[in-house]
């Protein structure tokens, strides 16, 4: 049963991701991207990482997708569905893409992935919180500095207009 759900969700996410690139209108690409994000969030739930799933929805769909849509609106390219979608180098691109795909499949089949037999603890979020201020406190604080740096940088760039 889990396999079936996994296959369905993966197909959903993959086709949404393909449509992001294949869609003619930029806004529709953004919407397909949102669907891909939703698919990934559902995959997280399948992995019993519920906090991560909702954080994913909250940040990616709730903030980053909206940022992307606003950025699309800032540029004028939204309403032009007549541009050609393929340029001359598409044969080369497909070749490299296939090569990359084969390479990744070979690598993934060879790695001995650690299989987790231990069940996810019920208080996983508490453990995560304890780790934030315990073992991983330096990345935690650096994250805040990084966020403020991003904020300041974006304001500096945006104020120049």
């Amino acid at each position, binding site marked *: 049963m889990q396999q079936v759900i996994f296959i369905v969700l993966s197909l959903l996410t993959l086709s949404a991701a393909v449509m992001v690139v294949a869609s003619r209108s930029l806004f529709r690409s953004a919407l397909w991207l949102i669907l891909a994000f939703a698919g990934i969030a559902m995959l997280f*739930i399948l992995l*019993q990482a*519920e*906090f991560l799933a909702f*954080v994913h929805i*909250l*940040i990616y769909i*709730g*903030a*980053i997708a*909206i*940022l992307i849509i*606003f*950025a699309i*609106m*800032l540029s*004028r390219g*939204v*309403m032009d569905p007549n541009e050609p979608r393929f340029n001359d180098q598409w044969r080369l691109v497909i070749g490299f893409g296939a090569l990359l795909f084969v390479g990744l499949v070979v690598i993934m089949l060879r790695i001995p992935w650690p299989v987790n037999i231990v069940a996810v603890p019920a208080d996983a*979020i*508490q*453990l*995560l*919180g*304890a780790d*934030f*201020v*315990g073992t991983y*406190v330096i990345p*935690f*604080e650096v*994250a*805040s*500095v990084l*966020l*403020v740096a*991003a*904020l*300041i940088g*974006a*304001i500096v760039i*945006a*104020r120049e*207009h």
Partner: protein
Amino acid sequence: MPSQYAFIGVFLLVALALPIIGLVLAWLIRPKKPNFAKNATYECGMETIGDSWVQFKAQYYLYALIFVVFDVEAVFIFPWAVAYGKLGLYALVEMVLFILILLGGLLYAWRKKALDW
């Protein structure tokens, strides 16, 4: 826990199905007589002037950006909040530092008038 999410999955499908069923029902019932005047874009009752594309204010983008930063901050605060009861004093100190750094960012945005409309 998986059973709860199975319910949410079913609920999602039902919640999407309800408006669809309603709209199909309405489509069956209502009249369909499109004509030019009705299909024209609404602009306070007058003819439309110019393209239906507007100059997008950069301010919207700034609000979304500041929101991203504070959203990520809130996401960091949640696990800390639920684990807080069992942790020592260091948890408080570190979170105060975290929030103060972000408040500094907010203050910067405020002073640089990035928060004004």
